[in-house]
């Protein structure tokens, strides 16, 4: 593999890792607070549809982003209602919402636009267009660094940079702020938070809301940046890959970045089977590349690469009175 190819694959990696990263960080807030969320996929999908539709109608990507966040928050609210207020089974709620989203997105898009569950193609300001970073042109020709900066780092939409910025921000929020301390505590031992005089429900609702916002951004990125419009099932399991990345990263923000980049890299490689063939020296079936993130996650879950211990109170509704 030559350097130019590598650069191209890394460029593609960053683009493909972004929705994973946003969804993964979304899941991180929720699960750190003790609310399991396998509904990341559904929230993303819902957001993708809403943002695609609103961007198509208004011509503004930002309006689309807002709509995406709202749509995702709506699903998050149902999940919160089921898992926080009514202390239902969080896993079942997530599964259910994924189905609802999968169907409703098509229904709504079809009734709005009549294009087989698609939104019309977006162009111009209805999309988040690539941004050239400062000095990108200038350093373009510097050996090694130049192409890396120009091709890989520069030239993505603002949401890609937002996602990257969210990684240190999340780390800082989680480990350096009062909110983060409480959030982590409520996922480990809600009774400790409760007896310390802090509202368990409040914290969990806050976490679910943040998850909604981030999934909303992830979905909007899919429809208004990565692609130009919404299409049926366009998230294609990314919510689950993000979940896998979250486990892979053992619920830590910086590790989440690396996990998502790794899984994004696999996705990028799957478009360059020629390169994989060159690297491995034999034909690798594409399905194997597709399955790799899942296989790796199972390996991690099995504890062969260090144990992935989820937040201790995860998945359990907080019940004071038996």
């Amino acid at each position, binding site marked *: 593999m030559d350097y130019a190819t590598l650069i191209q694959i890394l460029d593609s990696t960053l683009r493909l890792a972004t929705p994973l990263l946003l969804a993964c960080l979304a899941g991180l807030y929720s699960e750190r607070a003790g609310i399991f969320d*396998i509904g990341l996929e559904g929230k993303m999908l819902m957001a993708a549809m809403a943002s695609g539709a609103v961007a198509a109608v208004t011509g503004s990507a930002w309006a689309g982003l807002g709509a995406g966040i709202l749509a995702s928050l709506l699903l998050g609210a149902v999940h919160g209602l089921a898992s926080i207020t009514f202390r239902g089974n969080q896993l079942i709620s997530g*599964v259910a919402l994924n189905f*609802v989203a999968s169907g409703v997105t098509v229904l709504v898009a079809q009734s709005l636009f009549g294009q087989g569950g698609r939104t019309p193609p977006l162009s111009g300001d209805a999309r988040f267009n690539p941004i050239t970073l400062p000095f990108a042109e200038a350093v373009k020709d510097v050996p090694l660094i130049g192409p890396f900066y120009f091709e890989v780092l520069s030239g993505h939409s603002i949401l890609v940079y937002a996602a990257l910025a969210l990684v240190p921000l999340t780390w800082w929020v989680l480990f350096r702020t009062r909110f983060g301390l409480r959030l982590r505590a409520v996922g480990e031992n809600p009774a400790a938070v409760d007896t310390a005089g802090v509202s368990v429900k409040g914290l969990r609702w806050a976490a679910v809301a943040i998850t909604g916002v981030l999934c909303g951004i992830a979905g909007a990125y899919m429809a208004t940046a990565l692609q130009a419009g919404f299409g049926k099932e366009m998230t294609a399991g990314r919510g*689950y890959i993000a979940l896998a990345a979250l486990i892979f990263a053992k619920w830590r923000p910086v590790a989440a970045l690396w996990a998502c980049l790794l899984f994004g890299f696999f996705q990028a490689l799957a478009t360059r089977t020629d390169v994989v063939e060159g690297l491995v020296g034999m034909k690798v079936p594409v399905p194997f590349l597709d399955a790799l993130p899942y296989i790796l996650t199972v390996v991690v879950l099995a504890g062969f690469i260090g144990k992935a211990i989820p937040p201790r109170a995860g998945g359990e509704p907080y019940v004071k009175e038996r």
Partner: protein
Amino acid sequence: MDKLPRWADVALVPFVSLLLAAIVAAIVLLVIGQSPTEAFKVMVEGALLSSYGWGYTLYYTTSFIFTGLAVTVAFHASMFNIGGEGQAQLGGLGVALVCLALPWPHWSVALLAAALGGAAFGAAWAAIPAYLQAKRGSHIVITTIMFNYIAASLLVYMLVDVLRPAGQMDPATARFPEGTNLPTLNHIPGLNLLFPKDVPANVTLFVALAAAWAVWMLLWRTRLGYEIRAFGKSEPAARYAGINPTKIIMVSMLISGGLAGMMAINNVMGESERLVQNAAEGAGFIGIAVALMGRNHPVGVLLAALLFGFLYQGGAELGLWTSIPIEMRIVVQGLVILFTGALDMMVRMILTRVFALFRGRPAAQGAV
């Protein structure tokens, strides 16, 4: 909070959940500018008012009985098997390999062998997550989700690179030989009066009914079933009683995976007579809804499977005769899971309030 009477718990809670799901579904339809009553009419007509419709409704029902039972057995051991879809896919592979392996002399022999093949493959696919749960504590929900995806990839590989006959373009196996073709309901003497034309529902329906009976026997009439249920209620107590947790996790998941895999004799062997991609069509996930709806009891599963068979066939008719997209049925499926599974407590709270109201009134009158 007062307790609900038993009949309310068994019958009323699922019914009200279903009603709520139906109401929300109707609202969705209204929002997208469709008529819920019209939609319901089309569904009933297409699924229940012709032998053709019944043929498909029962065909889907058969599949959902298997996956619903699969989820049920695992649930009783307190394992949430979301992997029914993958296990059903693998079951399809097993069935296909069996059907293509030999020139089977008679369908009954082939059915037996294919059922074993499907069950074995489904069980094998459940075995790894089960083992990881039992021995390494890996959360079964996450691993089975991962295994669904891995199954999909594996099937693509098998269908594209291994089993696809030369010269064929679509990723599918060859047609199964004649000897493996299962009698459909219209080929069964007696039933053919009800089903004059070719329908996809086939003898597998009876296998499914037998499976429901077997699951009931297993859970409530055998020592193993006793152990499964005890383990599902309390693992520490099960240990105290000398019930081996590893064994129960493995056995219940193997049975669960086996049942999901056996579904393939219905769709792969009974209907399409070859293995295509994504043959399970989400039946594995519907099993979750069916089990929840059916309160994890085989009789409930049968009824819920019939309901979902109707929803599925009716939903297909919607796609055919109305401008309501076929995805409507996924929405309904999601709503049913949501209300019966996750918002169960809400439904109970509503019902408890209603009951309290009814109880309160006569008492107040009596006081006068």
